[in-house]
């Protein structure tokens, strides 16, 4: 069962590229200025109280290019970041003045108009998650995390991730997902959808397939065969008991 490892293993293909910084279409967004500004602001949000000044003072033109942007952005507030890192060794706990009682204090994310700057909230949360991924923290019931990404309104996500993300959100992807659920299911040859008189399970199945499509990289969607293999492999493992007793059946 060497196959098992390769098929089951949680998709290093989709994992790897997303972990590391990768050149992404987003960088070609129509508003490079805005984007670079945001990026710099984000980099300035070191877990220690870093004055955001140096970041704003450097509207680097290079920032319009994704990969190059990272360098000046990181370089500009170099000192505070380094300080943060040093402190991180002593006490790796995530800290940010706007992170209060397990959530982002929205009152500290006001922009000039007084409305919440959701983009900054998204930046801050991405930063927090990245921080925790690098140095996981003890979960604590006294100091529970209560922040919920769903408080960020949908339009903030759409605005932020304009083209590619909005496209994924729209009906087209949903339709693809929906048909895929049934399509993949019929390919497995076992009719899970039919077999389950239970709507909840059907929903799970639907969500699951939609999820695979969303979580995956676009390129993978083209790679239909892999997706199908993945969803049928487990079935084959279950069915093999029933196969080897038919004289003409494939021996496993």
């Amino acid at each position, binding site marked *: 069962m060497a196959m098992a490892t390769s098929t089951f293993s949680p998709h290093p293909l989709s994992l790897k590229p997303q972990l*590391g910084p990768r050149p992404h279409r987003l960088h070609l967004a129509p508003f490079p200025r805005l984007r670079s500004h945001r990026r710099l602001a984000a980099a300035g949000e070191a877990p220690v109280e870093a004055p955001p000044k140096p970041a704003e003072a450097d509207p680097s033109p290079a920032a319009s290019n994704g990969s190059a942007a990272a360098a000046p952005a990181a370089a500009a507030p170099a000192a505070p970041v380094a300080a943060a890192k040093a402190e991180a060794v002593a006490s790796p706990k995530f800290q940010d003045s706007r992170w209060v009682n397990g959530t982002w204090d929205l009152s500290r994310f006001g922009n000039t108009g007084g409305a919440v700057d959701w983009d900054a909230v998204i930046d801050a949360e991405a930063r927090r998650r990245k921080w925790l991924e690098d140095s996981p923290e003890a979960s604590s019931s006294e100091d529970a995390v209560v922040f919920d990404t769903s408080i960020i309104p949908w339009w903030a996500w759409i605005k932020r991730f304009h083209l590619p993300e909005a496209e994924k959100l729209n009906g087209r992807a949903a339709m693809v997902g929906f048909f895929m659920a049934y399509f993949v299911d019929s390919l497995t040859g076992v009719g899970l959808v039919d077999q389950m008189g239970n709507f*909840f*399970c059907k*929903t799970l199945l639907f969500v699951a397939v939609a*999820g695979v499509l969303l979580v995956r990289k676009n390129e993978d969607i083209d790679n239909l065969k892999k997706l199908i293999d993945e969803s049928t492999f487990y079935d084959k*493992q279950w069915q*093999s008991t*029933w*196969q080897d007793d038919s004289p003409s059946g494939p021996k496993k």
Partner: protein
Amino acid sequence: MTSLSSSAAAARATFLPSSCRARPAGGRRSQLLVTRAAASSPKLPGGRKLRVAVVGGGPAGGAAAEALAKGGVETVLIERKMDNCKPCGGAIPLCMVSEFDLPLDLVDRRVTKMKMISPSNVAVDIGRTLAPHEYIGMVRREVLDDFLRNRAQKAGAEVLNGLFLRYEAPKERNGTYTVHYNHYDSSNGKVGGEKRSFEVDAIVGADGANSRVAKDMGAGDYEYAIAFQERVKIPDDKMRYYEERAEMYVGDDVSPDFYGWVFPKCDHVAVGTGTVTHKADIKKFQAATRLRAKDKIEGGKIIRVEAHPIPEHPRPKRVSGRVTLVGDAAGYVTKCSGEGIYFAAKSGRMCAEAIVAGSANGTRLVDESDLRKYLAEFDRLYWPTYKVLDILQKVFYRSNAAREAFVEMCADDYVQRMTFDSYLYKRVVPGNPIEDIKLAVNTIGSLVRATALRREMGKLTL
């Protein structure tokens, strides 16, 4: 069984109309099975009873031996270690308590709050929707296994302390199997035991993940996860937190493809994790699990360290002649939740019932088709459960972003009610279409948000 070869073909072919699609088991197939054993298989000579050896005295073996003995079959159960303390979380669903008539004092703890903790430490208490009498039972395996074995003995099964070595298949058609084992006798204090053998008509392999019965019958291998667990005795005040609570941690730090757990035991907690894909890193994942639970288990003393394989899927072959497999030996552990005790006991009992029926209460010989009836029924009943959990694991344990979405999804009352109902009672309750649509929309929303955030994380350098 010609329909089976076509089902295999159908599984591979694409674009088949649904009407010629194959079913996993049961359904059309079970109708095709010819019921004949009880009617046509030979009566046992001299009025002797059917003899069956059950190898292994875990939940699968104990349940099988009891049902066999009750059904009038002469049953011998071999267990190599009577006080075996199988490395196990020990969580059992509520329906197991009633279906297997377990006395309530067997249940050390009643967990009513399952805390699920995401990579960014968002914690969700699952269990808000539980009715006052509902809980997840926590048992000690040495106690449960012993109880089931004793009950089998009371029902008339002979329980032997010995190490099963191998079996010999019969030379002639209706001949007997010879079981070779190492007999342990505590009374004469002989170490290593004494080689003995006996004859039986059928063998039930319930000897767990490293099954020797499976090896002898050429059942083939399965992919397995390695699970690591430390029993930690924590201070009383910390223990109070785990009184009726269990924790599940998800994240790339604790396991790339499973979860880390803290399960309460009678007077200590079990802290563990598992993985299929990165077995070499298991110690690292265990350290990460410990770290994430740090505040709650601080000051604890590790009293026992254990590790054990967990099968990922059934073996390619689960029956050969009059030998069949049940429980972990067959490979019945669910993905995603890693649950196997109930399915072990249930498969043991179902297998025994098929033998009892096929042998007309132990008066006739059985054959492979009788044992296949148990397999068909088991697959029909539980395959959808296994499949759904496989899908859930593939989708939601694949990355930290997906795990965040998973935890968000679990915060939903409707999801909690549905998952608990299916876990506790092993039945599928019809859902509510409106709630389902809401759930689908919300979960996809969660996935999109988590993926979007991850994309941003990819661009960050800390």
